[in-house]
């Protein structure tokens, strides 16, 4: 007994010190109301373009509708209602791909039909406008209430709230994955769900940190915001995010911005404009891991006019597509979040242009940075050329397997443009003799031709040439310059 008292006596000061230290280390969080809150409910914020565009839901017009605000000079401009998503009794809770070109929304009694009650719908942005939303269908949608989706930044995992049977009670959180070209059957997040409500899930840009709201006992009152982090395939024990973000009223819809100390959430606390209001919290007390963001503009290489092109980001190590996005039809802008410490192939494709590919290295120490990469697409015309992202072993002309997706794209391009004849041009760096490099570049160009012919392309449409080291892209002997000079290009010779 005495021993236990001693242990307790020793542990108590340690626990108190730990509490004091935790309170001391925790930054002072300030919250600021959003300047365009209405007398109605304003909730479900969603951010795209690295924080430059804010979407949210509001019933300021009497019905729940989605509004968009754009940032100009650090100030939000007044919100515009999105009117092109189709007629519905209620529409809201958008989640978007980071580039803002695809939106998943929730809607009740949408004109496109439903599985039953409130369901999830998807809309694409075309020439500056959102298309009419179409239902995501089963198994994501059910005859129950399915709403409040949150799409991971790679677009491959969807979290949402539902009161469908099979959960723990009330509203529960579910997760579905994009597998084999379709959404998998949603699985309840049993480690987070309770017999009470869990809703407004929001997966952070790191694809690991999940925020959600719950009215489970032990909170500050009403709905509180909780955070949980993905560890393997399961989430950690959720933590109440605390005051001043949580209050004795309802606090929901928490989102974190990429590489930013800012977060947004909704609350119906006293002192607002009425109903739920949006608030900005700085700093975010539960920051997600930093990510690498990449943005740029896709342009016509001749006219510099912006182009809306499909962009595929492939992890060169795992050869998995980590993101499929589209640059804006009007501005050509694109935006994507990437994981640091990887090597990626960035491929842009538009039917009227020669496709473009480039290898992007994102070192680990780039975490938290924003990379800029503009892409110039060459119109399909004689003498237009593009670098093929093909890989060879040192001193060899055997294609490495990671070259094949790029060459498959080239074969697809040639099939879609049967009038085009091409020349495969091999280049080397300046290491080695002229004659050796000439031979190597020829053999590498031939290897590419051989693969394309094996894919059904008429060999008469393909000529090859090896230039050795005679036509360097960069006249330098640095490793970076040599890497740029070692290349295989595809040039259109007749159209």
């Amino acid at each position, binding site marked *: 007994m005495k021993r236990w008292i001693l242990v307790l006596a020793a542990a108590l000061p340690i626990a108190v010190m730990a509490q004091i230290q935790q309170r001391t280390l925790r930054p002072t969080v300030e919250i600021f109301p959003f300047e365009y809150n*209405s*007398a*109605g*409910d304003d*909730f*479900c914020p969603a951010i795209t373009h690295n924080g430059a565009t804010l979407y949210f*839901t509001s*019933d*300021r*017009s*009497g019905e*729940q*509708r989605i509004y968009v605000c754009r940032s100009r000079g650090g100030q939000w*401009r*007044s919100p*515009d*209602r*999105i*009117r*092109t998503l189709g007629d519905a*009794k*209620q*529409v*809201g*809770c958008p989640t978007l791909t980071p580039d803002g070109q695809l939106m998943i929304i*929730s*809607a*009740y009694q949408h004109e496109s039909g439903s599985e039953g*009650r*409130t369901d999830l719908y998807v809309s694409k942005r075309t020439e500056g*406008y959102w298309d009419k939303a179409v239902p995501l269908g089963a198994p994501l949608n059910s005859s129950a*209430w399915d*709403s*409040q989706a949150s799409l991971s930044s790679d677009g491959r995992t969807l979290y949402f709230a539902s*009161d469908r049977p099979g959960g723990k009670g009330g*509203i529960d959180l579910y997760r579905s994955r994009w597998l084999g070209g379709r959404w998998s059957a949603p699985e309840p997040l049993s480690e987070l769900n309770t017999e009470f409500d869990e809703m407004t899930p929001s997966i952070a840009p790191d694809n690991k940190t999940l925020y959600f709201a719950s009215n489970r006992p032990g909170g500050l009152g009403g709905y509180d915001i909780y955070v949980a982090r993905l560890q393997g395939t399961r989430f950690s024990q959720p933590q109440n995010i605390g005051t001043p973000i949580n209050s004795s009223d309802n606090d*929901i819809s928490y989102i974190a911005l990429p590489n930013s100390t800012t977060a947004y959430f909704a609350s119906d606390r006293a002192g607002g404009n*009425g*109903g*739920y209001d949006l608030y900005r919290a700085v700093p975010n007390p539960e920051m997600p891991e930093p990510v690498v963001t990449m943005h740029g503009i896709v342009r016509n290489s001749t006219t510099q006019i912006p182009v809306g092109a499909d962009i595929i980001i492939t992890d060169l190590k795992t050869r998995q597509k980590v993101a499929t996005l589209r640059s804006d039809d009007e501005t050509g802008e694109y935006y994507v979040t990437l994981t640091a410490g990887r090597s990626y192939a960035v491929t842009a494709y538009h039917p009227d242009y020669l496709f473009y590919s480039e290898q992007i290295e994102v070192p680990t120490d780039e975490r938290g940075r924003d990379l800029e990469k503009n892409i110039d697409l060459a119109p399909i015309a004689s003498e237009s050329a593009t670098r093929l992202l093909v890989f060879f072993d040192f001193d060899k002309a055997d294609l490495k397997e990671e070259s094949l997706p790029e060459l498959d794209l080239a074969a697809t391009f040639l099939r879609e443009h049967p009038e085009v004849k091409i020349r495969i041009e091999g280049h080397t760096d300046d290491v080695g003799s002229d004659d050796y490099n000439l031979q190597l570049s020829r053999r590498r160009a031939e290897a590419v031709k051989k693969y394309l012919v094996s894919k059904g392309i008429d060999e008469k449409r393909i000529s090859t040439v090896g230039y050795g080291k005679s036509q360097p892209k960069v006249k330098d002997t640095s490793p970076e310059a040599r890497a740029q000079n070692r290349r295989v290009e595809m040039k259109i010779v007749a159209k």
Partner: protein
Amino acid sequence: MLRRFLLGVLLLGTAGYADEDVLRPQGRSTPPPQVMAEGLVKNPWALGVELGGSLSFFGQDVTQYQAPTYQTNLTSGSGLGPLLNLAVDYALTDALGIQTRLGYDQKHFTTSGFLDSPCETPPRSGLFIPTRVEHTTSQTIAYWTGGVALRYRFEENWVVLAGATYHSRSNASFTETDSITSGTCQFYDDVGNAIGQRRQESGSNTSAFNAARWSIDLSVGYRIPLSENIVFLPRLAGQVFLTPLAGDNLSFGYHPVLGQVYAFTNRRLHALQLVLGLWFNL
């Protein structure tokens, strides 16, 4: 009975917020706040200044009782006149609004054609020579207008307007030009002096046209936001008049020899309008 009716009305009113929504599977427990609809610009009220042009299409039925039929070239004509509107828009809902408009609208049209005209040569001789004359009438009628229209906004920026406009005649003027295109005949003034092969006459003919006219207006426009508080709204409008342009004229074109009589009936004018509007938040 009255109590049951009132209860029914009350239930009907509360049914809307008991429905589920994207935030709550059971719907909200309290009615949504009364909120203002979003208007043509941002606020429910907007003030518009519109400038544009009316492309008028004039037509009339010409019946001629005796030959020759030279006045038949007056059956149709068209022309462009300016218009200016001051308008107010009030949003009833996010999509639907009502507009009232006061304006000045000038309808203009020109009829032109060739006719065979008897030419008295020499003057006061009683000898008439048929001669070919190009006859042009340019007519302008100005109206003060007042209108009301329902406005429907769809697909974010498209706007459709349907309404009626009252036109109060302000003044009208004409210019007639005759040019002899064949022969040697000339025009003569009142005292018999030759004035050449071209003559022109202008004047006011306000009373020749109906003082009040009604039109049905249908237009489609496209919103182009210029700033937070200003929207540019070009629109194309069709204007169908329910009231004739003028009363029937049954004794036009007296022939000095034959004394023929024309009847001008069904005298109509419709218009297409291209209107460029700037709308401001009120």
